[in-house]
């Protein structure tokens, strides 16, 4: 991605943003408040907290934002945060790529148009 005279290129912006997100997830999240959140607090005060049931995935290796097998609490939460940031980025990117490409194919029915058309591709057009 060339800078095109802008201060920051799109690729550099995305990489920089991911570095900041990773830093927040790894270094800051272990220091976040451990108090119950708004809904949990209301559930406690209004007496419906006990209607909640166990999560089916409570035994997952990263359940509760803690990586199983990592004893240090801060490190465990920080690593869970890094895993979450990486997987969220990958899953969202992949989802949008798939959706974009499949919708283009459906709309134009001239095959994928994400690459410049070539003679081979045009002749291979399916209807």
């Amino acid at each position, binding site marked *: 991605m060339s800078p095109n005279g802008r*201060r920051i290129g799109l690729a550099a912006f995305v990489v920089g943003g991911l570095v900041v997100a990773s830093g927040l997830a790894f270094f800051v999240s272990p220091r976040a408040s451990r108090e119950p*959140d708004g809904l949990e607090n209301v559930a406690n005060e209004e*007496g419906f907290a006990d*209607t909640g*049931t166990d999560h089916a995935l409570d035994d997952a290796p990263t359940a509760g*934002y803690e990586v199983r097998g990592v004893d240090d609490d801060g490190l465990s939460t920080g690593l869970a945060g890094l895993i979450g940031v990486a*997987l969220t980025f990958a899953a*969202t*990117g992949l989802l*949008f790529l798939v959706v974009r490409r499949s919708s283009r194919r459906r709309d134009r029915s001239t095959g994928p148009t994400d690459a410049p058309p070539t003679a081979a591709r045009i002749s291979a057009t399916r209807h």
Partner: protein
Amino acid sequence: MHIPDGFIDGSTSAGAAAVAAGGIGVSLRRAAEVLDERRVPLAGLVAAFVFALQMLNFPVAGGTSGHLLGGVLAAVLVGPSVGAVCIAVVVAIQALLFADGGLSALGLNVVNMALITAFGGYALFALLRRVLPSRSSSVVAAAGIAAGISVVLSSIAFTAEYAIGGAGTASVTTVAGAMVSVHVLIGIGEGVITGLVVSAVLASRPDLVWGARSLALDRLRIPSPGDTERVAS
């Protein structure tokens, strides 16, 4: 704000799952039209950034904490349709990997945290943009205010779900009062964080802010007498 399994009964949860699936389906179709393929990594970044920010619980009054929901932040940065999908991915990953938010409550959580904030919050943002002067500080202010209110909207949505299918015995009015009052406070944090992030992106790459696109157009446009009147008033 993540609803665990059990708080809301099965049929209400299933209804919310249908609404969530429909809303995200429509959002995905729209996203496919508006999202330039070069900007797909930007959408990924928005989702990843919201995931990180959602881990940062900040203390509010009375031994309670809150965290960013991020629906308005995402909607202002990449548009409401792409933004709603980003938050839905975050909510799904939290439920599936981190056991945060019940599996049966996934639809409820997507409705409350992704659809209501991204679409309802963005509508508020657009309304505020219309009444505020056309400059970048207005984009920041509108984003912050809409984000704050979106948290309250989300808490009202939970209350509605509780009214329809809540397993608890507390009255709906007391739950409504408790939910709204604590989420007004959490909303202030949401507004401040949203304003900070939007202003940081506006400072580095204003062209990447969906909610500020009209600013670039306004600069090119020759003002009509009506416009100058509006600016002067």
